[in-house]
């Protein structure tokens, strides 16, 4: 059994968690180009080495960030996203969606 040190719940079996993808900065969806959005949505760095990624503890629905080595599978550090996201991000307001008659 592999253990994941959850910042909220302590060490738990890794089968209790879901991998949530590499940690990347989200571009402003209202202001960025389609190419920038596609790059954000699809493309990965996928390095062989240490990577920062999102993980979810399923039972408590708690999202956090882990630093993991993708070659050795060692989890080096886990921490609450509040350490990185310290301020509220306000994106440009979305244009109002056209209502389509049903």
């Amino acid at each position, binding site marked *: *059994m*592999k253990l994941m040190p959850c910042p909220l719940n302590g060490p738990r079996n*890794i*089968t209790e968690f*879901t*991998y949530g993808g590499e940690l990347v900065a989200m571009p402003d969806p209202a202001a960025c180009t*389609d*190419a920038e959005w*596609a*790059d954000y949505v*699809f*493309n*990965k*760095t*996928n*390095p*062989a080495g240490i990577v920062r990624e999102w993980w979810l503890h399923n039972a408590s629905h708690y999202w956090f960030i882990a630093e993991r080595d*993708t*070659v*050795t*599978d060692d989890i080096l550090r886990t921490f609450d996203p509040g350490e990185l996201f310290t301020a509220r991000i306000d994106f440009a307001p979305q244009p109002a969606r056209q209502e389509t008659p049903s």
Partner: protein
Amino acid sequence: MPFSLLRNALSSDPCAKPDFPPPPPLGRSYDVVIIGGGGHGVATAYYLATRHGIANVAVLEKGYLGGGNTARNTAVIRSNYLTPESVKFYIASVDLYRDLSNELDFNIMYSERGQLTLAHTDGAVRAFRQRCEVNRHLGARSEMLDRQQIKELVPCLNLDPGHLPVLAGLWHIDGATARHDAIAWGYARGAIARGAHFHPLTEAQDFVVENNRVTAVKTNRGLIQCGCVVQAVAGSSSLLLNKLGIRAPIHTYPLQAMVTQPVKPFLDPLVSSSALHCYVQQTGRGEILIGGGSDPYPLYSSRATLDLKEGLLAHAVEMFPFLADAKLMRQWAGITDMTPDYSPIMGRSPIDNYYLDAGWGTYGFKATPICGVTMAELVASGGETPELIQPFSLDRFSRFRQINEMGATAASH
């Protein structure tokens, strides 16, 4: 024959000729450098030589011939996909496989046994009907089976596993299997005999790029000048792409599989369950081969996990209860380069003379011959993408034109 037998019996020379000559010294320059000496790489070299007369080709392999995913897959050959783009592509591959032993003069042990995929939910039945219609429209042989027909086809299958009774099945008559190593060996032998160089223990480490063209490949054995480069490195795809600064939607996951001790023949078709994420087949040696979904998170390591074995074996035993008494003999993993839509990334890259054969995830083996044909065509034409692989280009993601094959691939490979 008797005379040659007698002559060889009296001669001190061994009569068996080795299939592969010792590797030639590393050349300083090649027209085409293929990175990756698995099935896809050597098939490309083979068709470059046979169909386009291009033999000044080097295949660079960091390990040994066919030692990566070519040796680690579960050798499923089929064309029962969902989208017309994929179905056409894989039909072309199955057609090449059928005649490959003759073409290569090398026995690939092609065995057409059919593949049965089980539906346990109404949603899966609907999806299978759609696949079946698309397959038949394009020329692949697929049909729907009901419970009684499944029972007649595979009498030892448990039709009521736990809370998921089998409702129907997708019977793919073209489903087959073959000796996976033989594919790499046969293609490599044919390519080498026509002048291509195969360099084992030669790792591509970096590139020299001038005017948006790769002019040389840096390897652990020195610099090689090149006219163009084909990348066919499966699980290591992102590592090479990152060196060139090419962004791609590839995540690397391990995929585990296992075989039991050999038993007497009892299972002819390949049987796969969509809901149990498990597929079971009997190899020519009598072993029961069991495979399933990928690991739950990305990793560049072929280590084994107990979690995956527990889950997969529980499902295999649900399908074939008597397997509970069988003992596992071997377990292994491959490193797969997964794309978000479960379709490959083939064709041109942002670098002019750098061609991609990547994103092959868990479905690369069945496409080996057609990958060789289409990549050779792409290289020989100087970058004109063959129609068959145009839908699989890297830029489909920035155009939001994915080819979704998750349902037809995720658990049945």
